[in-house]
């Protein structure tokens, strides 16, 4: 999230970033690999799916994640450059095997 301070004319804009906290869900083999079924991830401002994934990759066990896993935001499939909001639920989806 991005905040702008009140500016006087002639001032350069000053931006105050804060770290966004995103909830990440893990399932099946991915939950097993990372030893948990959910994570709270700190990411920079205006995060995208790829940023969330990069942060998850820093965790122990994350080497088992493929280069581009399926990801959902709020129960819908998303793309790597889709933006992630602070209240969004990001799910990393192992290869599905239903039916």
């Amino acid at each position, binding site marked *: 999230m991005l905040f702008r301070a009140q500016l006087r004319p002639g001032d350069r804009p000053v931006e105050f970033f804060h770290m966004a906290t995103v909830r990440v869900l893990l*399932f*099946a083999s991915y939950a097993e690999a990372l030893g948990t079924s959910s994570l709270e991830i700190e990411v920079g401002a205006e995060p995208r799916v790829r940023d969330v994934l990069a942060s998850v990759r820093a965790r122990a066990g994350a080497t088992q994640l493929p280069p581009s896993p399926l990801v959902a935001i709020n*129960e819908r499939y998303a793309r790597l450059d889709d933006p992630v909001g602070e209240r969004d639920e990001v799910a990393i*989806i*192992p290869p599905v*095997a*239903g039916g």
Partner: protein
Amino acid sequence: MRVALVQAPIDVSAMLAEVSTASSGATTLFLGTVRDVNDARAVDGIEYSAYEAMARRELETIAREAEAQFGTPHIVVEHRIGFLALTDISIAIAVSHARRSPAMDAARYVIEEVKKRVPIWKREHYADGAREWVDPTRGHAEVRR
């Protein structure tokens, strides 16, 4: 149209009754069941798990797509999760329509899309005690039904 994730055994007769209408001339039922061999390994059960909220949502999306594409409002889909033994039904898809082609095409569409999109996973229990997550993308052709 109704979709559900269930823990208890799927009641196929109830599903058939649910899609039955006086204007139906054809009803198709597809059942996925747990089988004893996968990839040449002896299987004695499968644990199904899901991202439940999203799985329900995707099932509903798929059923609505089938309804729009084939004109089949009378569709019921149930997917079971939890531990299933051999011959247990993991998924049941019932569709009725005045004519047979839409009923058959819709059921086929639903199962094909479920296999591609619905966030459900299975961990096979093998007779030798091993357990493995099934990954259909790994080129295990036999994983596909």
